[in-house]
Structures are given as structure tokens and as C-alpha cells.
């Protein structure tokens, strides 16, 4: 279950960075595609060279690729004042087109081979013995999943405890105020978008290497949008986004585990299939309530405009 959540956590954290600086990034899906593509291609190409370390290096390379690709979104939406949603949508289209084009060019077919160098799975000692929770959270997870959780805490620290974080939040709420205080709005926004690219790149690579083991048109299908949902659900807070991603993972696995429980056996499978989504809507409506985006998100900052 935690395996399903990890790519969402990474990507949602990326989304938090970007939107906290005031840049909406609907292109997370496309950035995940880039990450997935890069991770798999690297893994396939260099498995012989790096051996067991391959997936880890592949994730780093995917991170770099995601960062570079997100530069397009940054340049368009920050420097050229493009509508952020438009630019994000273009990122999504471009990522899918480009990666499939390259896959066909590189491999002469529509999908890559399967990677053989995988991440290791672990049971976390002691914790995995805790009844129920242990099984859900601590058994049979990937190291990388726990890294995702640790990273969420790190991101929280960065955003809420460091000068950089203070500037990020200021730029997302009131860029002109930040500007008059000598904060370079464009620089901070670039940082936010590039970080979102880095994180989504990791998320995509982790998804590809923990779920499908290959790259094709369907490797990333909607995970980026789910990550956006997790970010909003988590109220643009790193720990909230992580919680939401875990919630999605939990709801997904409930719908899968549920099918094998006697109680659920007789109810039509459709109820279990839609359960994660319906549960999310109910949770949002019932307990979570309204969520306010960073005030300036979606708006290009033009010096001197009122």
C-alpha cells in the first residue's frame, strides 16, 4: 500500500513547492512521464554497468531530466507570462509525445523492455509486527517509499523553517510584498517549478520501476492528476499532501484487499473499484472542508501591475 503511495508523495511534494511559489503546475503528469521514461531507459541501458545500484542512479537521472523539462514550464509561465494552466497542459502533451517518439526511435517499438534491476523490498523490523498497521505500513515496502515519507518531513522543514521557505510562501501569497522586500520573485518561482520537476521526475521513475517495470503509453496514466488531488487534499502542506497520498494508497488497497474478504464477496466489484474516489470526495466534504490555495497561485507576477 505504501508502495502505491510513494510516487504520489514525491510528485505531490513537487506540486507543493511549485504552487507555494504561486505557479500552478498541472504539468506534473507530464513531468512524471519524463521521469518514468528516463528512469526506465537509464535502467535498461546501464544495468550492466551499475548493477544493484542502477535503480537508485536511475532515479537521480530521472530527477535531473524532470528538472530540465520543467524549465520549459518555468520559462513559459514565469518569464513569458504564459497562462500557467495552458503551459502545464502543453507540458503534458509534449511529454507524452516526446517520450513515445523517442521510445519508437530508440527501440523501434511502442514500449521498452522490462527492467531487471529493481528496488529492494523490506519489512521494517519490529514495526511490521504491529497488527494491521504493521502489515499495511511496514511490511513489504520499498526503501524508496520510506524515503518518500522522510522527504515529506524534510520538505516541511524547508518550507516552514528556513529562510528559503519563508520566501517561497511569501512569493506565493503576495509576490509584490516579497518583491518590495528585496526577494527576487522570479528566482524563487523558478526554484519552485524546477523543484516540482525534480520531484515529479523522481515520482515518475519510482512509479515506473516499482509498478510496471517498463515504459509505455500507459505507464503513467493519471498519477500526476492524483498527485495534484493529493496536494489540494493536503491543503498545500507537505505533510498534508503526504497524508493524502497515503490515504489514496490505503483506499486503493482496501478496495483490493476488500475483494478477498468474505463480507465484500457478494457486493458488485464496482463498489470497491470506486471506493477510493468516493471516499476522497466524502472526506473532503465532510471533514476536510475548504482549502485555500496560496493567494497568488495562477497569476503571473508583472512588476508594477496592480
Amino acid at each position, binding site marked *: 500500500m505504501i508502495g502505491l503511495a510513494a510516487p504520489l508523495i514525491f510528485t505531490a511534494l513537487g506540486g507543493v513547492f511549485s504552487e507555494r511559489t504561486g505557479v500552478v503546475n498541472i504539468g506534473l503528469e507530464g513531468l512524471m512521464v519524463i521521469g518514468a521514461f528516463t528512469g526506465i531507459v537509464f535502467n535498461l541501458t546501464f544495468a550492466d554497468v551499475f548493477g544493484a545500484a542502477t535503480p537508485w542512479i536511475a532515479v537521480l537521472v530521472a530527477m535531473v531530466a524532470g528538472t530540465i523539462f520543467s524549465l520549459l514550464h518555468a520559462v513559459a509561465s514565469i518569464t513569458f507570462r504564459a497562462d500557467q494552466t495552458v503551459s502545464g497542459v502543453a507540458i503534458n502533451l509534449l511529454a507524452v509525445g516526446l517520450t513515445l517518439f523517442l521510445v519508437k526511435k530508440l527501440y523501434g517499438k511502442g514500449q521498452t523492455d522490462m527492467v531487471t534491476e529493481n528496488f529492494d523490498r523490506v519489512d521494517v523490523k519490529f514495526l511490521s509486527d504491529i497488527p494491521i498497521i504493521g502489515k499495511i505500513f511496514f511490511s513489504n515496502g520499498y526503501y524508496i517509499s520510506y524515503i518518500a515519507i522522510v522527504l515529506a518531513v524534510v520538505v516541511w522543514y524547508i518550507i516552514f523553517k528556513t529562510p528559503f521557505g519563508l520566501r517561497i510562501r511569501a512569493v506565493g501569497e503576495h509576490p509584490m510584498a516579497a518583491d518590495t*522586500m528585496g526577494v527576487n520573485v522570479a528566482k524563487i518561482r523558478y526554484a519552485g517549478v524546477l523543484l516540482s520537476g525534480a520531484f515529479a521526475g523522481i515520482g515518475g521513475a519510482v512509479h515506473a520501476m516499482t509498478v510496471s517495470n517498463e515504459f509505455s503509453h500507459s505507464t503513467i496514466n493519471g498519477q500526476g492528476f492524483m498527485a495534484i488531488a493529493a496536494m489540494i487534499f493536503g491543503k498545500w502542506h507537505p505533510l498534508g499532501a503526504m497524508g493524502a497520498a497515503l490515504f489514496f494508497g490505503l483506499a486503493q488497497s482496501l478496495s483490493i484487499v476488500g475483494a478477498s474478504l468474505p463480507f465484500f464477496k457478494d457486493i458488485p466489484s464496482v463498489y470497491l473499484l470506486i471506493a477510493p474516489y468516493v471516499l476522497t470526495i466524502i472526506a473532503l466534504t465532510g471533514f476536510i472542508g475548504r482549502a485555500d490555495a496560496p493567494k497568488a497561485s495562477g497569476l503571473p507576477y508583472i512588476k508594477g501591475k496592480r
Partner: protein
Amino acid sequence: MEYVIEMLNIRKEFPGIVANDNVTLQVKKGEIHALLGENGAGKTTLMNVLFGLYQPEKGEIRVNGEPVKITNPNIANDLGIGMVHQHFMLVDPFTVTENIILGKEPSKAGKINLKDASKKVRELSERYHLSVDPDAKIKDISVGMQQRIEILKTLYRGAEILIFDEPTAVLTPQEIKELMMIMKSLVNEGKSIILITHKLKEIMEVCDRVTVMRKGVGIGTVNVSESDPNSLASLMVGRDVVFKTEKKEAAPADVVLDINGLSVKDARGIQAVNHLSLSVRAGEIVGIAGIDGNGQTELIEAITGLKKTISGSIKINGKEIQNLKPRKISESGVGHIPEDRHKHGLVLDYSIGENIVLQTYYQKPLSKSGVLNYSKIYDQARSIISEYDVRTPSEYTPARALSGGNQQKAIIGREVDRNPDLLIAAQPTRGLDVGAIEFIHKRLIEQRDNGKAVLLISFELDEILNVSDRVAVIYEGEIVAIVNPRETTEQELGLMMAGSKRMEAGGKSHG
């Protein structure tokens, strides 16, 4: 002569307009220098140039005699220039300290050292008698307090030259008085201040010299001691201005607005209006005087249907209207000039013409069975634009592009043209220049003379005393006194607004 700031022959263009044309401003060390001009004269632009937000096309800036290039606010900060902006530059969800340290954060091992920062803020605040709570969140503190944060921000950066852009437009009289004190103590510490304001009284009170601008051009600099409000006003507008609008004796008739025992809660659920009773008759202007936050906003929102009441009644021409939909209430004859014209008064992305019909677009002849008749709409807009002297390139221009004064005139035209039995005007002249204020006051009185009821809410005691026929003092959600403006003074009113004469005045009001 030693100048700390010299802006020489500054020219700044925006697409299609020259905002500053060959303007010169010289500020001496230790003085309070006023910058005066109509709305849109180019004052803010000039200051933004000095602060590094805009780059001038021409001209030279010298600080302490040295020519400098100020290409961004950081450089301005380094040169000791700080600016308190017309619209506050504060991040709402942040604490006071966070706002102040932003961009110059003290940190230890990569972590913001909030403790140190907050201590330093406290020290600064004490030194200049600002009594600021470093840990409060911006969204929880008053406007006056927010302004002090803006001042602290500049002091924290070691500013020697402070620019204040219309600092008093949003303050209560008490807060204004305190601000004047603060400015004086800053000057005593050796700082220099540039003050932009439309209020000539303030200039006379604290400033040493004043530079006047008109339509982007510098008209000249005069010593305040050798000048008076009338000459300043005509220097600025280019004609004579009347400060006290002439008006006939009021002839109050039937009661139009009748409020009885009204109670309303504010957004946080605290009772803001407290068994309030008040009536306004046709043919009179009732002014509500009070310090911000004493229930004025909630009172207006209850009358206009934007907020639910918890008890009491509101009648318009004898018909109960409390808790009706806003549209029903407006149709029963209530017009409303809202306090915040950008947030509540206008759809800034709509054309000024569309904004003029924002209350009436659905009525005949502007629309028929749900279909708009744009030629009729713009006909009507044109006539209001010319009648109310709204200066706009055309009726199709987006409202956003108009100056504040002209936006306000459009709103007033819209509301008055509907000929409502009751006109509620909340802070109708905030931030406007004397010419525009004169115009708006005339319109309110004209409305009264046409036998309409007018309810005026304002923090400007001048305005309240000049325009109203009766003054109701609001304190903690109650009307604590009703006085005749000709029989009272600003001092007296000020005391009542602070709650001192509550008992005695309260007795009177029920008489």
C-alpha cells in the same frame, strides 16, 4: 543646502501616458516633505522610481549628493530608503516578525532564528513606541497596526529615508494622530520622511515643505509655513476648491430606514451589532461616526442583506427587509456604495459600462427575457458617465484602468441613478483628492435635497461633520449618541467614539 534625496528631471512613461514629466524633488535631511497632487498626478509612480520598482526613462537620482542607479528595491534598501506603500505589502498568513524579516532573515544553521528576530522586532517597536506584538498574525490585527508593521519593516532594514504613500487614507482619527507622533519621533531621530497625502490639514500639521504635482508635472516646492490649505489646493487642482460644501437646511420627512433592536454576528461569530436602533428620514443625511471595528461593516451588511441578523428588525418604508436576498433589498429601494470599491464595488475586468449596470442589467429595458440589450446598456452608461464626470477613454474601457476617483464616481453614478429611497455610502471618499471629494459630497447632498435618505459611514470626522444632518456615534455595536453636527466638535465626537460619554449620551439618543 544639504539634500538627502535629489530626484532631478525624472521622466517615467507608461504605454500611452507620461506619468512623470521632468519632475524634480529635493528632500532635506531631517524634514518631513509632503508630495501633493490629484489622483493620478504621478506621485506613487515617482516614489516607485525612487524605491527601485520602476526605472525612469530620464533623470538623475542622488542620495546624499552621490548619483545612484536604483534598479531594484534591494539597492534602495541598501541606500537607506524604505517605503510604506499605499496598498500594504503584507503577507496575510505570516506573523508580524515573519513579515518584517522577509528577505533579510537571521538564520542559524539554515533555520530561521525566529527567537532572535522577534526580540529585535520587539526592541525596535519599543524604541519608536509602536507597541507591536511580534507574534501576532497579520490577518488578526487592525489596519493601523498593519501600517506600523510597514514602518517597522523599513526601520528593521535601517532606513534613513522613509516614504509614506497615503498612509492616512485608511486610518481612524486616533490612529492618524498616533502616526503623526511616530513620524515626528522618527524625524527627531534624524530620519527624513516623504509623505504623500490628499489631506491638506495633515500637511499643515507636520510637514516642513511640500512639492506639488499636477498631471505628471512638478509645479514647484513651497515652505509649509509660508502657505495655507487654499493656496495648496488651487496649486494642485489648478482652480479654487471649496472645502466646506454649501448646503441648505435639511427638511426631514417620513422615516425611510427604521432599525430596531438589531443584533448581528461578525465573521468569527462574535456579536458585532448589539441591539442597535436607528432611523433615517427622507431628506436627511445621517452620519455614523465610529472607530473601525465597532460594528459598522456588519450593520451595513445586515441592511443590504449580505449578512443574516440574529434578532431585531430592519424596515424600509415600513416594510421589513431583514434577511431578504440582497437583490430583493436593493429592489426595495436601497442603494449602496461599498467601503472597498475594488473588492465589493466593481468587477474590475468588466468594462466601466458593464459596471454601471451591475445592479440593473436584468431589468427592462437593459434586457428582455434574459437577453441583454447592449446598445441600451451602453446608452445608459454613457449618460451616467457624462452626468457624473467619470473620466474614462470610453464606456468600453475596463474598470481596472480607471483611477480610484473615477471608479468611485462611476459607482456613485450607478447607485444614485437608480434613485434609491435610501443611499448607504461607506467611506465614499477614501483615498480621493480634494476635487473628487468635493464632487462626491455635492452629490450626496443633492440626493438629500431630492428627498432621499442617506446613511453615511466614515472615519473622517471632517466629512461626517461637514455633510451630515445628524451624527450617530457607534461604539461596540451600539448607537451611543446622536448629536447635531453643528453643536459638537471633533474632540467631543472623538471622546464619544472611544466610549467615554456612553451613559449620558445613550440616554439622549432614546429621547
